[in-house]
């Protein structure tokens, strides 16, 4: 018995201690909980950049990059045809406020109309709000599917002596600080209604001995439901009616006059706005080559995944595989660029390493470190679709880039 009491006390203490924890140490956002093949088939991310990694409160930072809704978008999500999307950032609470968002150069305060195969160049300006070190990702939410998270990084915010403020100018010319705007009206009015409610309840429950509760049951039990016995029985008196009339009168006056005052004081209000936009289509990217994947081989012994693709160079200059991007991770050809950040890795080997000549068709084998995919839960072993998908990036000598969506069945060499 004592053991049980001790365990219960420890559990209670643990629970109490946990209520004191805040979210300073959160760095994961649940992206690995989503099935790997879904993340690989759904979106491609590239050129994701954070303009700063150290800020002071009220400083602005821009997260920009490109997201493509891949042609391999899973047929069971959004009926295979995403239509409404929303760019956001994933962070532990509102540590930043979003002050600007552009998609393909167009301001997009709310959701936007999207489609399979669509390429969206985004930029989101965030203003630092809460001091701390926060892990931040861009993300694209797709209606009837969910939120897919792009590459992220830590951003540090140091405190400013003046604290955080978020000024906004209303159409009537008045400038407000959204951070605290209207708070006292909300708290004040709520508190006044609580006083009225407590007045009503205390009248019936507390006065010494007159308004007893439990022992009224014997009287109430003997009266028909729609009768209170009147003053003769005395459980509801004329004074009770009078007193309740006062409280109700005050309540009606408070509500009515408050409504009138607010309507005059805050005149010119408008309903909540639904402002969805269709972003312009970005300039068509160069077409240097076409690529089609034929196989993806997972070798558990070598701990590698080999993606085999056939590339046809349709341009007039040699092209080279510069990256394979899948989910929110990129594997880069070290001959083109070196990885930096938490979501970029080197291609383990590329065969053949030489560029593909103009007009040539060549089979290339891109070998990836399977451990990286496993760590990010991207290797879909044991999942409903054994598949590898992503964006194969090819570059010519002038730096012109070509993006091809590829997809191949994943075949383990052994189980």
């Amino acid at each position, binding site marked *: 018995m004592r053991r049980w009491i001790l365990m219960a006390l420890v559990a209670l203490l643990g629970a109490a201690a946990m209520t004191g924890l805040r979210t300073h140490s959160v760095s994961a956002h649940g992206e690995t909980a989503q099935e790997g093949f879904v993340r690989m088939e759904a979106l491609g991310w590239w050129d994701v950049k954070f303009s700063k990694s150290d800020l002071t409160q009220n400083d602005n930072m821009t997260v920009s990059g490109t997201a493509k809704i891949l042609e391999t978008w899973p047929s069971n999500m959004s009926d295979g045809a995403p239509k409404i999307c929303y760019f956001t950032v994933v962070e532990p609470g509102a540590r930043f406020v979003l002050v600007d968002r552009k998609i393909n150069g167009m301001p997009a305060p709310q959701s936007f109309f999207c489609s399979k195969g669509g390429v969206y160049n985004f930029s989101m300006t965030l203003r630092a709000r809460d001091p701390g070190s926060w892990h931040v990702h861009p993300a694209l939410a797709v209606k009837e599917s969910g939120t897919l998270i792009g590459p992220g990084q830590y951003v540090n915010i140091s405190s400013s002596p003046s604290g955080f403020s978020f000024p906004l100018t209303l159409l009537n010319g008045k400038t407000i600080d959204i951070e605290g705007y209207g708070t006292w009206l909300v*708290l004040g009015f709520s508190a006044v209604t609580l006083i009225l409610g407590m007045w009503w309840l205390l009248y019936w429950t507390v006065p010494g001995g007159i308004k*007893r509760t439990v022992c009224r049951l014997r009287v109430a039990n003997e009266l028909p439901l729609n009768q209170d016995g009147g003053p003769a029985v005395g459980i509801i008196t004329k004074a009770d009616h009078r007193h309740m009339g006062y409280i109700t009168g005050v309540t009606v006056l408070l509500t009515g006059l408050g*409504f009138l005052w607010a309507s005059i004081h805050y005149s010119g209000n408008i309903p*909540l706005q*639904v402002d969805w936009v269709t972003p312009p289509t970005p300039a068509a990217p160069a077409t240097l080559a076409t690529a089609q994947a034929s196989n993806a081989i997972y070798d558990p012994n070598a701990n590698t995944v080999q993606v085999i693709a056939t590339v046809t160079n349709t341009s007039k200059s040699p092209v080279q595989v510069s990256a394979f991007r899948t989910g929110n991770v990129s594997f880069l050809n070290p001959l083109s660029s070196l990885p930096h950040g938490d979501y970029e890795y080197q291609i383990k080997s590329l065969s053949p390493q030489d560029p593909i000549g103009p007009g040539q068709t060549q089979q290339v084998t891109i070998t990836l470190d399977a451990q990286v995919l496993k760590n990010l839960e991207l290797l879909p072993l044991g999942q409903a679709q054994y598949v590898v998908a992503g964006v194969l990036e090819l570059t010519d000598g002038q730096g012109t880039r070509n993006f091809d969506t590829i997809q191949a069945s994943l075949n383990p060499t052994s189980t």
Partner: protein
Amino acid sequence: MATATIDLEALRLREIGERKYKFIDRKWDAMFWITAGFVVGAAANITHLLFAGDWDFWTDWKDRQWWMTITPFATIIIPSALQYIQWRAWRFPTGATYTAVCLFFCTWIGRLVQWKFFINMPINFVWSATWIPAGIITDYVLLKSRSFILTSLIGSATWTMAFWMSNYIMLLPFLQPTKFMDHTLTVADVQGISYIRAQTPEYLRVIEHGSLRTFLQETQYVSLAFGTTLCVFGYWVGQFIGRRLSVWPIFRYLKQY
């Protein structure tokens, strides 16, 4: 003779009501009101969250179409049950106010601890609506009418109207127009865009999007009328809970005296 009989009956009941009980003192009353507060608050909050949770969490969900239609219905169920229980047992016209006060504490503790303390959302974005004025007026209707049918008809209408008017006082500052990202939006919209809710994208808002079916473009009043009708239905769902799920099982097994 008949009057004398009634008077005698009244006197007998009055004597029962004023009788001093050795073992049923005010501690029982305090125990009831305080312990029941947790149960009633939780029941009201769960019902509210199940049917109308998101509308109450954020200012940019508090629209003039859905918020006004769904919330009065969702939040009158438990007050109605409590009205029946407290009137039936003690002739107290307190059920709706008691529930509204319990819900007030539940929601505000949630907002302050979960939303403000844990993730530092500004209170002016996540404030809870108040139901106390609506509760007082609905209890008053029961006190004066002593009829659950009349309370369901008049009380449900006053519940909806009082809910709308009392909460619009707090909401109106957030419906002021402003220009943000080159678009005309309300302050509430800006709050919803700026204070990032990673897993609540904007398109999830169930708010007025516009249609060809708004009567003379008066969305607000159509919603209030429809909300009132739904509220009458909700009131009788609450009565069912109060009568058949709460009180009836007790009396089924309680020895009558």
